[in-house]
């Protein structure tokens, strides 16, 4: 029997809406004493912060407006390229005033695929908000890393498009990564 006939459709997405903080980050908007703490506040539980990098940026809509009602989620491996189901996830929103998000995390290592190919260091990003009917997926790579053999970037081809996936190095530990939902600088979004 063909297994294709037995595959059900997955449940469709709907927008997370403007009030997603209530369910995803309640403590951050003052709904205290229900959940002990919000999920994904720190991606890696380390005592020493010295090795953390910082990634900041904004999410821009088609009019050039930086959004303040968007939620980003990130997923990554540790410095040695190992994924662990208990670490590496973060959730963050832009600051109300600056409209910039900030992610403090460890710099991920290169990842070895099951077929032996090596992925350059990267972080998966998922973006949800009012007006986004289906959460958007993209990746952050890092300026200064060797990206020439990354299997995923070879699918993107066009250099201008690849550059939308690369965080710009501000200094040793600080990177900038802006996300453009539309326009000339539109970020590459992935069907993962």
């Amino acid at each position, binding site marked *: 029997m063909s297994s294709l006939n037995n595959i059900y459709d997955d449940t469709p*997405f709907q*927008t997370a809406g403007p009030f997603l903080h209530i*369910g*995803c980050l*309640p403590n951050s908007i003052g*709904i205290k004493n229900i959940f002990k703490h919000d999920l994904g506040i720190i991606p890696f539980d380390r005592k020493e912060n010295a090795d953390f990098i910082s990634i900041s940026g904004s999410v821009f809509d088609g009019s050039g407006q930086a959004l303040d009602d968007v939620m980003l989620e990130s997923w*990554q491996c540790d410095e040695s390229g190992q994924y662990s189901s208990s670490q590496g996830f973060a959730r963050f929103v832009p600051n109300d005033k600056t409209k910039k998000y900030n992610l403090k995390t460890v710099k991920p290592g290169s990842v070895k695929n099951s077929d032996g190919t090596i992925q350059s260091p990267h972080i998966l990003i998922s973006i949800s908000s009012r*007006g986004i009917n289906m959460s958007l997926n993209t990746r952050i790579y890092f300026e200064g890393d060797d990206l020439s053999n990354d299997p995923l970037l070879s*699918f993107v081809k066009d250099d201008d498009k690849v550059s939308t996936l690369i965080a710009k190095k501000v200094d040793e530990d600080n990177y900038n990564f802006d996300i453009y939902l*539309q326009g000339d600088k539109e970020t590459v979004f992935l069907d993962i």
Partner: protein
Amino acid sequence: MTIKTLIKKNYEKQPISNYPDYKSSILRSPKNKKISVPSSISELSGPVFNKNIIGNLDNDLTLNYSKNNKLPIGQKIIVHGRVLDQYYKPLEGVLIEIWQANAGGKYLHMKDKNNAAIDSNFAGCGRYITSSNGSYEFLTIQPGAYPYPNRGIEWRPMHIHFSIFGKSFGQRLITQMYFQGDPLIQFCPMVNSITDKKAKQSLVGSLDLTKSETDQLLAYKFDIILRGYNQTFFENRNEGL
């Protein structure tokens, strides 16, 4: 060797990202086609949450924000169901987070401008991790419909927001559940951004009278299907042969 990949998303069953009837989507929908990439370990892995993060009242929205044991105002309901994969296999250990308006259609959120009352005993958030048969259950209050600015003032049907974590980042789902029989569903542009009739219908929680009778509370059933995996076996061979 066996290659594991996520079953490709069928975009015909998903909402259209640029759906002008829903005004907010106009400036927030990418214009370029998404680039389709094979599943790597990055997409096949994901955060898994331990049941010890869940407090006793996390799935009881009627009590988890109550002051002095006072109940929130409104019709008490049960929302329950199962989380399954595309082969209909129940998924255990899946984190579900929900959020919703109170009985009057008001969110406990500083940016909600709807002129309706806050209920001091209701926050509208809950979470749960599915049990061994993939099931979940929330005790809550029937959320009210509410007006919002779109093409003029329009009405959101009664709904509960759902955020679901599977076992991999590629299974992540954010959606909304609607209520069987709500006349506002058909007019909602967010619902109608999904053109496939069956897909749209799959977001409507159905009245579960059997459970309503057993538990003596109105119950709605909402099953959620997350993406499954393809497993393909390849004989080991040298590249190029």
